[in-house]
């Protein structure tokens, strides 16, 4: 789930050790230096890059068509590297490795699209609300509240049924379009609240006041002076949020309202595999679940490190 329990703006981000701060130049450069020094971060980055490459270039990993399934080959156990089906086949006789590799794309694309779009909406609205206050703030705050009251699942279900007749093609983006839309609509509130609070704080900083006094346009003040202050903590949320969307996709798949078959996603594979876990075919669940857990772990580790590195209170 998009982490809605997460941070009330006033509440709590972790305060990491205060390592010696280099006489550094930019925030980014400093953060990069910090990240580099941690082996867990490097491992996490490798995992994320690995799956990203898999999503981008599935043909590097398998030449089997994941949609080519022969029912007679149902549930062949993993044969190991070199076999025709290294990770075995599923109930329908589809090659599991091919499914896993091709399933990475919808799952990861969905996550990045949702978080990217939520971030855009959340940051924009939060910035506007915090900067102008008044009626803009009232509208934004009320909207946030309305969206928080509607249960995500109900909204997802309603919207996914609402648009179910929309002809959806088979392209990578088409199969995730509907879940992406819904998860974005209900995923932006945390960012908006966060940015709004940070904007309120930053607005009254001396240099911002100075910039305004010097006649800088509102847009310029917002983008150049306020935003950089607000963006740090929000950036730290991103990897965790991506991880959350990947998990949510699995739940949507379970409820039958996620990525549409015959497109494959990790969520769909987990859902299908879960049925067979007790029947002696645990590998059908364990492989996709393993990929999902590994990706989520890596992203969260990255997020933690980012937060530590970017926390402005350390500066």
């Amino acid at each position, binding site marked *: 789930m998009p982490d809605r329990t997460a941070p009330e703006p006033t509440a709590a981000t972790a305060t990491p050790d205060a390592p010696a701060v280099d006489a550094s130049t930019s925030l980014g450069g400093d953060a990069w230096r910090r990240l580099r020094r941690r082996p867990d971060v490097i491992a996490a980055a490798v995992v994320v890059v690995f799956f990203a490459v898999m999503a981008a270039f599935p043909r590097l990993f398998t030449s089997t068509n994941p949609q*080519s399934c022969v*029912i007679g080959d149902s549930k062949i156990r993993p044969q190991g590297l070199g076999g025709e089906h290294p990770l075995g086949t599923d109930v*329908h006789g*589809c090659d599991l490795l091919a499914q896993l590799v091709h399933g990475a794309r919808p799952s990861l694309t969905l996550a990045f699209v949702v978080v990217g779009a939520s971030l855009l909406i959340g940051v924009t609205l939060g910035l506007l609300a915090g900067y102008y206050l008044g009626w803009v703030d009232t509208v934004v705050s009320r909207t946030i509240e309305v969206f928080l009251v509607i249960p995500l699942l109900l909204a997802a279900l309603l919207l996914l049924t609402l648009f*179910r007749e929309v002809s959806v093609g*088979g392209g990578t983006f088409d199969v995730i379009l509907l879940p992406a839309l819904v998860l974005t609509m209900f995923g932006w509130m945390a960012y908006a609240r966060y940015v709004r609070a940070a904007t309120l704080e930053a607005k009254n900083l001396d240099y911002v006041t100075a910039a305004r006094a010097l006649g800088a346009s509102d847009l310029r003040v917002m983008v150049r002076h306020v935003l950089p202050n607000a963006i740090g903590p929000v950036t730290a949320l991103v990897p965790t949020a991506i991880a959350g969307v990947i998990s949510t996709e699995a739940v949507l798949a379970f409820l039958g309202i996620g990525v549409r078959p*015959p497109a494959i996603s990790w969520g769909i594979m987990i859902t299908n595999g879960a049925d067979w876990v*007790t*029947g002696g075919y645990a590998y059908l669940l364990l492989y996709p679940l393993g990929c999902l857990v590994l990706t989520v772990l890596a992203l969260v580790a990255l997020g933690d490190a980012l937060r530590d590195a970017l926390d402005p209170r350390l500066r």
Partner: protein
Amino acid sequence: MGRRAAVAATATAVALVLASCSGGGGGNDDEGDGGGGGGGSDPDATLNLALSQDVETLLPMDSNVGDNISVLDVVYDGLVRYDPETTEPYNYVAESVETEDNTVWTIKIKPDLTFQNGEPVDADAFARAWNYAAYGPNAMANNYFFERITGYEEMQGETDDDGNVTKEPEADTLSGLKVVDPQTLEVTLTGPFAGFGTMLGYTGFFPIAQECLDDIEACAVQPIGNGPFQVEKWDQGVGLTATRWEDYTLEETPEYGAIEWTEYTGEDNWPDFEAGNLDFAVPPPAEQQAAAGDPDLQERYVEGPGAALTYMAFPLYKDGPWKDVEFRKAISLAVDRQGIIDALLPSQRVPADSWVVPDVVPGGTGGTCEWCAFDPDAAKAALEKAGGWPDGEKLTIHLGQDATEQELFKAVGDSIQETLGIPYELDATPDYFARRGARDFSGPFRANWFPDYPLNENYLAPVYASGDAKNGNVEFGYYSADFEAAVKAGDEAATLDEAVAQYQEAEKILATDFPTIPLFVAQNTYYYSENVSNVVLDPFSGEPKLRLLEVTNG
């Protein structure tokens, strides 16, 4: 929704309470315990059954889903009941059902029968139920069963396309229904129909008490029946309890004391069976292997043929390769029915090779479909003959949103794709029925038929006959004058046997025209606990015959 396949697992559980015996395995949560014993039932025993949560009403006129039907089967008695072996009707509440010409039917009712509230079960009790169901504005689910009775048309209003009523119904009773005397009912049909006597045991034809009609809402949750059990309490969504009606006078009544249904959201109650809380269940596919390998469980396994037929239909009303019978043959020959069943639903389906399911209704025999066996080479040849499949196009297969069916049809699509090289996509639409009715499909679609009464005619006429030579039937645009004539000949036949034979002729016409592809037939299976014996599955509904069950101690 609608009539669902008999596979919709209604597991049943039986517990018996006999204080003196000692506990056997697979205990039950009822207070009693005791060892498995011989035959016979204990009058204090409680039978615990599972029920699907989509049961919304217990009004016979409004019940057309498998689960309420199986509840109402012990709460109500119909004019006829069906033999568990042959599914042929025999008189039960009716003393006799007679007709000279298959148009006017005279039904004599046994004397001195009463409802559970003391009202007499007489000709009026049937007439009021049927009139209520047939009256259009009441919107009863079983309304259409009465369309063969004279006066049905006058009881339906008319509406325009916007749903505004343009004509109120002219009558509120069926003119073809006459109460001659308290024990005699005379029914006039709009035309001869030899199968009418067969329909009379169906839930929609059960009688109702006047008290029920006076407060129909109360009666929908607390039925006033005339059967061996009466509904004690129904917590909708949670459970239903029925106890034996002590004043029951007819012969078919079990000896155990009560039935408790627990409502389930899905069909997933196998762990409850294993834990001893249910005594009847069907394992999910993943557990089937384990169950089949358990010698103890195998002794308590029963299977029998089912009545539900799953087939693939084509939008014959739209231009496309499917207009060519050779193309339809190619598709049919390309589906590895047995392989799909073995992988996905072993023992719960059998490959279909006829349009009328064999063994469960009179006139049903297997093997009438010549092109229903998996034969990749013949399939390719047939496709060639049909002119192939247009390059770059995808075959869209439409179906509803049932998870099990989606699995099955993914396998069907895979099979077609592998054999014929036709790429496919599944369109699992929640508006399946609406779109099918609106002829909005652009490719083959899944269809399923569960018969309403045991006669081969019911697999044929309601599905394929329309009388509309220009457009064909609504669902797939099929029309055959020969087929319609054969059905009509069956309706007009002098005896039921002759009628059945005529209907078989109609099926042969389907086998030639090949408008649809028979795919799977449901098979009824159940595992049951040590507590029950004399388990007989009704071939028609697929459920255990509750009235025959014997319950020993759990």
